[in-house]
């Protein structure tokens, strides 16, 4: 009996201790881990802590379900999280995030228009681009997605991401649809039909990839001559494996990862301080030299190293003909178009 009450007492003390630490925990910032978070640590986390606010970092693999469970379970221990555009949209609808006070962040005009959202502020901008091996295609090089379709001039296989998202947009742009009209076209039955008809033309030349690491591998092994790939992966292959892969930025498809503040956080003031810090162009300009992602404050672009800028989705030259991937469209239509894509690809 004595032993029992001792144990129970211990549990109570432990519970109190946990509760106390939970209430007094430091600002917790969550990002994607890996090389990216290593860069963030140098550029954002350490300098931010030097300003006098304590913070802890964690990493995650995404999925709005994780955030939903934290908020609905009532045991949320995260304050600031970096999310993909789809998670931003879903979580904001579901009320998982605090609404941002844009006056504190320097006003909406300070940022790229697509980086501004009720619940989130853009952190990085990256693209799906056309990539090819500069050692294998020389002289007359591909210039746009229409050239991606030209198997007479550049014989060999092509690789696109398996699934309708990004693939249908690319097909329409290859067919001459201007970026600003892509989602208008895709919203109609005739537009979807047109995209699939365009894909029919190169179906026999396609290899489909599913993981971001595959396109550079497919290029390196000579399996394919052109890919659509994340621009960061192409840059990394050139950097680490000494490849000579080239990027065509014309009509690249870009997306934005954003910072959000979790609903009901006890560290809201610190979280806002953190967002102000990471959105300062003087701090943002240091990220791209470490990892080729574009940043979101308009004033940063002018400050970024001139050698690095052309590798970024946010370089003015690269933005000119770019298409912003419309997550709202995909959230509504992905189920049906997935089914249709699966049916098409298997025939």
């Amino acid at each position: 009996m004595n032993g029992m009450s001792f144990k129970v007492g211990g549990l109570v003390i432990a519970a109190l201790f946990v509760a106390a630490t939970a209430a007094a925990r430091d600002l917790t910032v969550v990002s994607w881990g890996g090389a990216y978070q290593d860069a963030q640590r140098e550029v954002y986390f350490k300098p931010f802590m030097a300003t006098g606010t304590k913070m802890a970092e964690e990493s995650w693999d995404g999925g709005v379900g994780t955030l939903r469970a934290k908020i609905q379970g009532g045991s949320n221990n995260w304050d600031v999280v970096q999310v993909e555009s789809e998670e931003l949209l879903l979580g904001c609808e579901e009320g998982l995030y605090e609404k941002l006070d844009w006056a504190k962040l320097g006003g909406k005009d300070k940022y790229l228009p697509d980086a501004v959202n009720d619940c989130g502020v853009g952190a990085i901008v990256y693209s799906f681009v056309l990539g090819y091996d500069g050692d294998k295609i020389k002289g007359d090089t591909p210039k746009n997605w229409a050239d991606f379709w030209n198997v007479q001039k550049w014989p060999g296989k092509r690789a696109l991401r398996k699934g309708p998202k990004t693939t249908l947009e690319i097909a329409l742009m290859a067919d001459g649809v201007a970026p600003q009209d892509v989602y208008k076209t895709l919203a109609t039955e005739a537009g979807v039909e047109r995209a699939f008809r365009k894909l029919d033309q190169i179906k026999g030349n396609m290899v489909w990839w599913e993981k971001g690491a595959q396109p550079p591998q497919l290029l390196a092994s000579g399996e394919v001559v052109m890919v659509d790939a994340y621009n960061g992966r192409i840059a990394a292959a050139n950097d680490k494996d000494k490849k000579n892969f080239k990027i065509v930025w014309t009509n690249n498809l870009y997306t934005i990862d954003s910072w959000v503040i979790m609903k009901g956080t006890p560290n809201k003031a610190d979280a806002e301080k953190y967002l102000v810090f990471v959105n300062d162009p003087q701090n943002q300009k240091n990220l791209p030299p470490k990892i080729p992602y574009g940043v979101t404050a308009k004033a940063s672009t002018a400050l970024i190293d001139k050698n690095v800028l052309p590798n970024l989705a946010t370089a003015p030259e690269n933005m000119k003909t770019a298409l912003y991937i419309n997550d709202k469209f995909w959230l509504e239509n992905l189920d049906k178009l997935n089914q249709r894509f699966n049916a098409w690809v298997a025939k």
Partner: protein
Amino acid sequence: MLPLFLFLLASFIAPIAAMLARGVTDADVARILPQVTAELRRWNGRDLPQESAYGALIADIRAAREAGTLASAATRLNYDVAGYRTLMFATGRALSGELAGSARETLLAIDPKWGERESWNALRRAAGPITDFYLLAALDLRHDANDAIVGSPPEQSVFRDVLGRTLWISGVVTLMCLLLGYPVAFFIARQPPMRASILLFLVLLPFWTSLLVRTVAWVVLLQREGILNNLLLSLGLVTEPIRMIYNRFAVYVAMVHVLLPFMVLPLYAVMKGISPTFVRAAWSLGASPATAFRRVYLPQTLPGVGAGCLMVFIQALGYYITPALVGGADDQMISYFIAFYASKTVNWGMAAALSIMLLAATLALYAVYNRLVGIDKMRLG
């Protein structure tokens, strides 16, 4: 006996049954939107529902939004009708203010889709608790607006082809395993014990290598600038690399390689038990070697052939990683789509329905085998 049964129940039967149940049940929408689903059970489905259903929907959406559960209901409804997600959330947002007028007028003012029968029908179809929505979808079927079962439009139909392809690939792999495995088993069964055990060891060796490694090894061998193509090019047998990967050929090769031991072992076990005196007796009675093989030896090996074919075929039906790695887009089998729905789109109902199809196909084959050969005659060794 009982402990083992309980263990199987807890670790095998119960989880599988719980997973498969998701293919025929639909609990989310009725739980999240209880009033309107109750109303719709009384609705005839032909005219628009009455005012009370509209009122119930408003109350339900408000409550769900408050509880943060609207997303699961909206996701389920969007499987059926594209755009339903947005409809639910836009309605939820618009309902946060003060309402004027009747419930029907309010909803129609928010979105005219609430005046369409299809929106309400989708809601009714999702009301559960039992549903045939996923099972029908797994057979490329659906309910139309009048509740009749019709085929999906051809550009949305995929699963019948996939099921047919799964059976076809499994059949071809089984046949190739039999053609390759039979002579090997025959040869090993006639070797002296020492040599036979070394040869058997070689057959078993691949078993101790991970499936993934064996499959990726084929990628290295078969790819465009891989070992095989480089060899052919350097020997001058071809001038252009041959396409040997990301197609059906690679799927057959890799699957036969992985599954071959499952054919050789039961064949070997049966052949080992056949006394050589039978064939010798046939010879001494004047049969040619071919006749003796065909009429005396082959029939005695049939239990092994049956066991090997059944094992290879049933395993091949569920293959996922090998076709995914070495096959092209039109070589994917049903397991690929189960994984696609389970992990990529998190549509567990669809994943479960496809699993039910796979299980049903397997059981049907088993029943056919039992009828033709008799399962008691199967010999695994």
